[in-house]
């Protein structure tokens, strides 16, 4: 159980408690002003503020203590856990009813779709099925509003990029693109965001 310091009764305590966020510019205007006014006349708290940088350095050293985790090893264990039937995503309570009603319709549509389709795609996007190969997209890209189809097409061609899937619900596209192409996309004024999807470099 933590003891709450009566901050309003000790201005120095209140100000020093805020200094880490003050140094990062993360306080609201009111608190920022209060701290600034206090610092003007308080040498002790100015000394505390001056200690923020060494404090960060100190913690950076502490941060280097443990070796980083192994993402792929952790993910492998997670996959093994996910194979167990009891760890499927928990459906909301209305879901069984909805699934029951939808099941027949989905099965029928799926059957019709499979009949009509014999050219399976040779890629898998982020929304690929659970049993599919890992993601084969390199980057997630969002274009600025108003970008025309022609401008988009020319940009992708210029950067050697191809669309894997998209747009997502938030208007993002999944692309296959070389790392140099990704850099080119990032530099383009048409692109609002271009982020690599994989921890490894883009192919």
């Amino acid at each position, binding site marked *: 159980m*933590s003891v*709450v*310091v009566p*901050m309003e009764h000790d201005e120095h*305590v209140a100000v*020093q*408690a*805020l200094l*880490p*966020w003050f140094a*990062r510019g*993360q*306080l609201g205007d009111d608190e920022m002003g209060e701290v600034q006014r206090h610092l003007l006349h308080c040498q002790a708290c100015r000394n*505390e503020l001056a*200690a*923020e*940088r*060494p*404090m*960060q*350095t*100190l*913690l*950076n050293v*502490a*941060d*280097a*203590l*443990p*070796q*980083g*985790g192994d*993402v792929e090893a*952790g*993910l492998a264990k*997670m996959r093994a856990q*996910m194979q167990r039937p009891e*760890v*499927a*995503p*928990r*459906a*909301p309570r209305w879901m069984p009813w909805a699934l029951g009603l939808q099941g027949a319709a989905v099965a029928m549509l799926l059957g019709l779709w499979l009949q009509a389709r014999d050219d399976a795609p040779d890629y*898998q*996007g*982020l929304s*690929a*099925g*659970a049993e599919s190969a*890992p*993601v084969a997209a390199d980057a997630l890209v969002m274009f600025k509003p108003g970008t025309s189809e022609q401008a988009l097409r020319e940009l992708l061609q210029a950067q050697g990029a191809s669309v894997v899937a998209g747009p*997502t619900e*938030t208007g*993002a596209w999944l692309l296959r693109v070389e790392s140099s192409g990704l850099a080119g996309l990032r530099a383009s004024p048409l692109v*609002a*965001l271009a*982020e690599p*999807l*994989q*921890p490894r470099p883009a192919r």
Partner: protein
Amino acid sequence: MLKWPSLKKKRDDGVAAPGRGPASEQIELALLASIKRGQRADFETLYRLYHPRLWRFLVHMLRHGDLVEEVLNDTLMVVWQRAESFDGRSKLSTWIFGIAYRKALKALSRQDLPVDADDIEEPADPGPGPEQQLGLAQLRVRLAEALAELSPEHRAVVELCYFHDMAYGEIAEVVGCPPETVKTRMFYARRRLRLLLDDLAGAGQGEP
């Protein structure tokens, strides 16, 4: 004379941290929407995005590698199984860190884990800095001791502020306490670290 790097210097140890702006949040929410539909590939993308951040957070909370991995996977398993329960009232990262925080406290309550500073490994390239004057290993042992004196609740506040750039209101959401409590924890945690800092600066000045 000790020389300190900038407060805003790159803090990651080689791991490219994902961006934390609105665009990044949008991407994460798109992934979550897909996870709600049971898409494993999207879950794995989110897993890769969060693994470095959660590892860093949990390793300072728990300070025990095996337990860190277990709690980290338990945390992301909740994201996989209960993505529907995220209601969007907070940032997705706040929700996930909140799960990790509660899981870590529960794990600590199950096991009384001492901090064994002798087990701490040194990185291959520690780089220059004041630690060279004191001896890197010695400095890290003392840091480990100082951090171990803080409660997990206090360590969490320090970690989320100094390494995850969270404002105190967001930290309050993660740890589930009033903002005033976060400030209080920061005051005490900071005071303890400040003592160590003074101690180190004094030792540095005493060196030839």
